[in-house]
């Protein structure tokens, strides 16, 4: 790896580089746009299901169809958000990043699109199955048991080309983002196959079932969403800031720390439960230790951006990515804090689990993906985003909603958990106890729905080639006269 790294110090951009980038972008156009658009469609579905399920918890009679009962719409929402939106947005970003960083054009866009169709089929069957009442009770694995082979095979068909691309890369190009993309290629099949073999094939779950499901869910967060998100932010931040990543050492520490520690985590969700104390204790310890890679990444990103924070104001990609990086810190601190026995005693099996899921999937991953999409789409479509105002609306709608969701669900979780802890009260009264927070959650979903709707329209216009052809980037704000200088430095045409 050392020789590769030394060869990377060539910040000069030649005309040849530009033409090569353009050619790579063009070659990835079909699969990347396919995954982004189908991800966005699933984001819409997930948003509606999220709105319905959070309403159902306050007004159970709302839309009185059996298919949309809370017990079905809630897992349908989460799985649509995860497998429909997050994974597919991740695929698009992984493909594009891998092609760009390996400096090779994508040879087989059609294969990827076909595999992508199968992935969508699997997600559709899964979400439909959950709504039809066929789902399983395992956390983040609620898809009926016939869906998992479809997802696993189509995933493998997608990532095998990324691995091939990596092995055939041009010599001298391994960047931090590639470590993470490559890791993500392998972690999902490992996690998904293991969990499904134990839970859906052998079915000898008993007490082990929830432990395996917790391990799976936590690791999908820390071994798939985190690597893909970090691959994106390690790319976007230096690209826009125009500086090298601050420290190779910190990046190495963060990568190996994550990969080495995350597989131990998960069972701390069951702390105090009927499994040997050893398992949740080791898992909780690993979860706390996972803060080390978080600190390393946070330092690295912060020190890379230092001195150029004005760009966060202007660049949509950087702003979303920066917000997502903060989300990474927040979700890691939450997951570590909630695994302490003294806290978990009150919060286990409460809405704090929703808080961790939403912070991880939305505040960190989704926001990072938005940043990547705002960066990649103009490159693969050849036109620019139409409106800075729409991006601004999308950002603030999402950002307020993420922060509010995180705070609200944490508070709801503590009140819910404390109410469950009182043995005189039944579960229903525990839910009613947190009702105020749950009503707040509906409001947040309305915010998110509005923000996502604007984003979807914007993306659809871009995909239909209705973007601007001006050749200048669409920024969140038009820079003031006195700020004009740094903007030109950032994103001005160099060629």
């Amino acid at each position: 790896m050392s020789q590769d790294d030394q060869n990377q110090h060539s910040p000069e951009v030649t005309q040849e580089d530009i033409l090569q980038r353009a050619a790579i972008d063009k070659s990835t156009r079909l699969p990347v746009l396919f995954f982004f658009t189908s991800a966005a469609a699933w984001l819409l579905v997930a948003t509606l299901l999220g709105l319905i399920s959070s309403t159902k918890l306050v007004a159970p009679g709302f839309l009185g169809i059996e298919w949309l009962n809370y017990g079905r719409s809630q897992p349908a929402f989460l799985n649509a958000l995860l497998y429909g939106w997050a994974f597919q947005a991740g695929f698009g970003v992984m493909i594009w990043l891998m092609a760009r960083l390996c400096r090779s054009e994508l040879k087989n866009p059609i294969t990827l699109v076909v595999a992508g169709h199968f992935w969508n089929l699997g997600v559709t069957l899964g979400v439909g199955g959950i709504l039809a009442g066929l789902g399983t009770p395992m956390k983040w694995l609620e898809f009926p048991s016939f869906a998992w082979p479809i997802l696993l095979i189509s995933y493998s068909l997608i990532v095998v080309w990324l691995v091939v691309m990596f092995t055939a890369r041009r010599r001298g190009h391994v960047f931090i983002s590639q470590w993470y993309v490559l890791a993500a290629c392998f972690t999902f099949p490992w996690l998904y196959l293991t969990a499904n073999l134990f839970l859906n094939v052998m079915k000898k779950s008993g007490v082990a079932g929830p432990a395996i499901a917790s391990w799976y869910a936590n690791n999908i967060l820390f071994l798939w969403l985190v690597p893909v998100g970090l691959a994106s932010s390690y790319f976007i931040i230096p690209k826009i800031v125009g500086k090298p990543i601050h420290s190779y050492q910190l990046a190495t520490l963060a990568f190996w720390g994550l990969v080495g520690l995350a597989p131990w985590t998960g069972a701390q969700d069951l702390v105090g439960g009927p499994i040997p104390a050893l398992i949740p204790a080791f898992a909780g310890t690993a979860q706390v230790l996972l803060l080390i890679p978080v600190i390393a990444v946070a330092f690295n990103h912060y020190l890379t951006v230092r001195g150029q924070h004005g760009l966060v104001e202007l660049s949509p990609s950087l702003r979303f990515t920066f917000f997502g990086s903060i989300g990474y810190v927040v979700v890691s601190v939450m997951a570590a804090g909630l695994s302490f026995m003294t806290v978990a005693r009150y919060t286990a099996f409460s809405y704090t689990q929703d808080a961790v899921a939403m912070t991880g999937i939305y505040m960190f991953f989704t926001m990072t993906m938005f940043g990547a999409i705002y960066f990649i789409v103009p490159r693969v479509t050849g036109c620019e985003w139409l409106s800075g105002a729409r991006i601004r609306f999308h950002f603030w709608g999402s950002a307020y909603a993420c922060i509010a969701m995180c705070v609200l669900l944490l508070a709801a979780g503590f009140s819910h958990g404390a109410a469950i802890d009182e043995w005189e009260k039944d579960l229903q009264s525990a839910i009613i106890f947190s009702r105020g927070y749950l009503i707040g959650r509906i409001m947040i979903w309305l915010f998110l729905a509005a923000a996502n709707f604007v984003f979807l329209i914007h993306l659809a216009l871009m995909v239909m080639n209705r973007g601007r052809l001006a050749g200048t980037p669409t920024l969140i704000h038009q820079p003031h006269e006195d700020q004009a200088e740094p903007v030109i430095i950032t994103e001005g045409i160099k060629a």
Partner: protein
Amino acid sequence: MSTFSPFQSPDGTETDYSRKLNVSSTHAAAAREKGNLSVSRTPLSLWALIPICAVAVAAGGYLAGNVGWGPNLQGYNAVPELPGGEGNGPPPLSPYDPKVWVAKGKAEYGTVCISCHQGTGEGQPGQYPPLKGSEWVLHGEERLISILLHGISGPLTVNGKSFNGLMPPQGGAKNDAVIGQIASYVRNEWGNTGSLIYDDQVKVVRAKLASRTSPFSEAELKQIDPEGNLPPSKRNAAPAEGAAPAAGGPAPVAAGAPAPAAAPAAASAPAPAK
């Protein structure tokens, strides 16, 4: 190709709205990108080591706190003691709790009595007398227990209607507690309200009638004081205060014992069954 685009940015500051494709615009995004990505070899900041070490210490504390260093690696988490005594659930109800006592009476009633007196407590017109609103049930604890223990034979007037039959004695088949539970149940069901009767009170009656071998006649029953209550039970002392919030079910009136006297007893009474 048109040079007009309807898709103008609301910002309106862009100058080129041409939809003409050209090389410079399609490559513009690639061209304006920063140089190739690189990683600098800045040494690890000491400031970063401080929080990293703090995390490592916290994790060690977590491990020690949850596993300990002892041989308990195979054990289970010690769950902190919650209010409510043993286990983490509610404390077990006393069998003398009015709700429990009456509920047991209902179950016992269902085994034998129900076949004649019916689930409605109204009996069978002309054949079996009603218990609902019956003066024999509601008045005189001693008299009711006497009937239950030794039965009735011959004509009997209940609620103004006359019956002529045999009520078999139950004292042989059922112990004091069951007799008391059934009596308590029939006194507090179907709109009846009366005191609860406990096994220690039944015991008194049983001892008093120990020599009796035949069922009572109406005339004999009338010799028993119709308002004659038994000496207060020691059982109801504990649940006397708990009886009040027993909403939903029958609202039994605690037997005889005056509440003030019961209160200190309640505090010291040991929970009868564990």
